[in-house]
């Protein structure tokens, strides 16, 4: 569903929404509810991120409701399925959208998602400065890791996902989320 009038970030934030939306180049786009497997996986990844962040006191882990202002000048606010922001970049929580791109963005595909659109979202995250993107495909039981300075790399369920330089020491054996 597409709203008819371009909106500013302020209007988008102030307006009450009945459901999840993202703002892309001023256009409000409804977010389709995800399959329960995808939501569970996103929650599990969030829980691991939260545990890591607490243990290392290094920032903030967010669930899928958080809006991130990816490009101020393009009026683009998007919500990854899970995300991490380093404390140096976001010293305190506020009552607004997160005013920057996250350091890590996680996208978990649902059967209704199209790969071309998911990749386009990944490209947008990277262009906005996200340092690490995990694209999780529950059907194929794989995770593709994208970075701004390295080629994509796909991991399977026997592999261990690591946090690279964004989350040093973070590990997640993928068998634990592809149950």
């Amino acid at each position, binding site marked *: 569903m597409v709203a008819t009038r371009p909106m500013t970030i302020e209007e988008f934030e102030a307006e009450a929404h009945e459901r999840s939306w993202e703002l892309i180049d001023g256009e409000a786009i409804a977010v389709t509810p995800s399959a329960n497997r995808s939501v569970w996986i996103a929650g599990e990844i969030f829980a691991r991120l939260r545990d890591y962040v607490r243990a290392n006191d290094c920032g903030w882990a967010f669930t899928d409701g958080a809006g991130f202002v990816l490009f101020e000048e393009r009026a683009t606010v998007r919500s990854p399925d899970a995300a991490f922001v380093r404390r140096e970049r976001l010293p305190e929580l506020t009552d607004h959208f997160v005013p920057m791109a996250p350091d890590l963005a996680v996208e978990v595909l649902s059967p209704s998602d199209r*790969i*071309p659109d998911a990749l*386009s979202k990944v*490209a*947008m995250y990277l262009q906005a400065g996200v340092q690490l993107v995990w694209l999780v495909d529950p059907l*194929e039981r794989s995770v*593709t890791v994208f970075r701004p300075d390295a*080629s994509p790399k*796909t991991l399977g369920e026997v592999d261990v996902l690591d946090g690279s330089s964004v989350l040093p020491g973070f590990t997640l054996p993928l068998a634990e989320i592809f149950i």
Partner: protein
Amino acid sequence: MVATRLMTIQDFETSPLPGRWELIDGEPVEVTPSSGRSSRIGGRLYSRLADFVEPTEIGWAFPADAGFILFGDRAIVRSPDAAFVHRDRLPEEPAGFVPIAPDIAVEVLSPSDRQPEAIAKVAMYLQAGVRMVWLIDPATRTVTVFHPDASIITLGESDILDAGDVLPGFRVPVVDIFA
């Protein structure tokens, strides 16, 4: 380099700009020449595709400079580093730009390429209907394979790149691509 004036596909085709350009939403964008290594890899893929398709007349192989009109309703002309179009979709050799998106698009990264733009280009190809994209990274000696409706796969030097049902029988050992 970005020119200042928006162009139609017809303008772009009939009044050539000096050098190599692509047209993205009406905006001519100059294409930086490839590195020697990347150019040779693209050429090698083109040769393999041409050798495979020409005897059987199953379709057309194109080297790096062919322009493809990716969308019917957007002024976008892009040039993959090598491409294949099935003859069913393109019965005659086009005198002008190729009027459709290719079935296979090959992108070879150069040291000057930025990963976010490369992923955005892959996403655009898939949105335009390309059935298979091969993103080749000479630095890591990997090939990442994208389809619009299947998982992303990263191949290393011990793997074989297989065009599957897009071009049945076309197989190249990844090690040969980087030879």
